[in-house]
């Protein structure tokens, strides 16, 4: 008899479905989708499209968190990379723009990784440094203004579409697939889970924990860079002051809603992305609802708590316990 515990994931999907249903109640056109200039158009698409930056961030964040780390700098890194992309867009070809921007994200991740793995600074403070300074760097690049660009190639990454799907969605899916390939196609995933679960044991088992630590922060930086590019491309400009502001919290929230523990260990990239969609579905629902903006945060708090409580191991156990009781009474009847 297999004693495997049920794989988590159902609760997240159910939560997403419930929120989408709630959105449909507040806005009956929620599921309407039409084609507009060759691009799918509708509230559901908005959820995916607007959710793309946080989803991208959460793809990197989930690896960092699985390693018992945390990356508070992703919002600032988004701003830096978006600023670089926007300032270069009109004077350089797209590959150069992307290389510069992604390179900056990589460098930011490397900095974080080195602070954590080599200087052994606690992740939350190590990344807090870049969270504070990074926004300054982004503003330095834009000199505090909104740098706009007209390059249609870069604009395509935000507003364009591939086979009707807005590009940000496509980029997110691609990044998710690539990350899954790298992490689950190799033994890296196992090593990350092992190191996050028990760093000392993993080091003794011969896992190069430092290198992997640096690597996950680099990857998180890269994801943040991509998110920054998408955010810039979306508004045809880089708003260093506000791009990615507080998105690190959303990304962490997405990862946790996705069932990955902040104490490291087991992780799920797919569910982290689902978590990001849950958050965005909630935000979009609030916007559609017509409630006054003063209530936004209260609604958000209540929904987040409800989603988490529904996932709570305790409450889950109680539901399972009910199942056992039920099963038992049935078998007793049979005997």
């Amino acid at each position, binding site marked *: 008899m297999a004693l495997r515990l049920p794989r988590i994931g159902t609760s997240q999907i159910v939560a997403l479905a419930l929120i989408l249903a709630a959105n449909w109640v507040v806005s009956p056109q929620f599921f309407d989708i039409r084609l507009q200039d060759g691009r799918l158009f509708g509230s559901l698409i908005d959820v995916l499209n607007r959710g793309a930056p946080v989803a991208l961030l959460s793809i990197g964040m989930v690896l960092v968190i699985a390693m018992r780390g945390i990356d508070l700098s992703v919002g600032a890194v988004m701003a830096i990379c978006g600023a670089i992309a926007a300032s270069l867009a009109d004077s350089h070809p797209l590959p150069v723009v992307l290389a510069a921007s992604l390179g900056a994200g990589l460098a930011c991740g490397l900095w974080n990784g080195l602070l954590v793995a080599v200087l052994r*600074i606690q992740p939350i403070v190590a990344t807090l440094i870049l969270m*504070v300074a990074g926004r300054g*760097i982004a*503003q*330095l690049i834009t000199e505090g203004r909104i740098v706009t660009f007209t390059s249609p190639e870069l604009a395509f990454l935000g507003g364009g579409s591939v086979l009707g799907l807005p590009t940000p969605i496509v980029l997110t899916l691609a990044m998710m697939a690539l990350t899954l390939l790298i992490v689950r196609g190799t033994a890296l995933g196992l090593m990350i889970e092992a190191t996050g679960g028990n760093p000392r044991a993993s080091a003794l088992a011969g896992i190069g924990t430092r290198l992997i630590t640096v690597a996950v922060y680099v990857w998180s930086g890269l994801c943040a860079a991509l998110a920054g590019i998408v955010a810039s491309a979306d508004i045809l400009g880089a708003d260093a002051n506000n791009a990615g502001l507080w998105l690190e919290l959303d990304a962490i929230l997405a990862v946790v809603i996705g069932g990955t523990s*902040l104490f490291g260990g087991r992780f799920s990239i797919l569910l982290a992305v689902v978590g990001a969609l849950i958050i965005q579905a909630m935000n979009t629902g609030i916007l559609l609802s017509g409630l006054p903006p003063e*209530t936004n945060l209260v609604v958000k708090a209540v929904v987040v708590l409800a989603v988490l409580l529904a996932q709570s191991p305790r409450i889950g156990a109680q539901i399972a316990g009910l199942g056992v009781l039920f099963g038992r009474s049935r078998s007793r009847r049979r005997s």
Partner: protein
Amino acid sequence: MRSLARLTPVLATTAVFLAGFVLCSLAYPNFASLRVVMNLLTDNAFLGIVAVGMTFVIISGGIDLSVGSVIGFTTVFLALAIERWGVPPLIAFVLVLVLCAGFGAAMGAIIQYAELPPFIVTLAGMFLARGVSFLLSTESLPITADLYTHLSDHALRLGGGARLTVPAIVMLAVVIGGMVLLHLTRFGANVYALGGSRAATGLMGINVARSTVLIYTLSSALAGLSGIVFSLYTSSGYSLSAVGVELDAIAAVVIGGTLLSGGYGFVFGSFIGVLIQGLIQTYISFDGTLSSWWAKIATGLLLFAFIAFQQLTLHLARRSRRAPAGVRP
């Protein structure tokens, strides 16, 4: 010897702070004055108070992201209670402290009984407290009660324009009280034990649930007290006040040598951590030539410098200690 060794992070932090202060004084002639020191205490009083609560939470292995919002809520509630509803200020203080404590207790209970990570529960708490303050009022409300004018005028004048203000005195009292509570009581020992091993603490027969609830109650109540101080400091209530203070408090606690993973740390270290952050800001405003972005970059770099220097000090201290003493007696 080994018991003393645990103090190394605090000592390192204190040394770093003193060194920083001396450097600033060398750079700016007006810096090394009692006035600047007292300003450091007054201006960071509200942060110091939440940092004490945060120290308890972090040592117990948790985190509390809601404190900034709780401060905001407190100021709005006080302004409404005192100015609109005509509640006497002292009663309003008690009311708001009870409300905040209850809020903390609720978060602690959810963390304990639903077994949810503190980070997320208190993040939801952060949304909720801020959201409720928006619902109460989105305007900034002046508080004109006599007590407020009295209290903000009331200060020990120390000469040279230096004043030991009421907020500063409250903070110092909270720091000392926090030190006693954390280091000298059973509750304090339980806090450390929880951070060392939650499971083990339960197996040792400690009431983990009660301790957890108490810890978050304490943190929120101190955030409420901090909100009272903040409202005294600004004589007003405003729903957007103290945004992001939770991160400042966490940074202060961690800079003060407390391990975010729990189990280690000192209230005094957090106090120094607060002062270090205040020092960085004072330095930047004394300099005054930094644009918004350079100020942020400089804050980040100084933060890095402090932490790197602290790591170095710790590393050297450990090395010099290990050689003669060995791992075991």
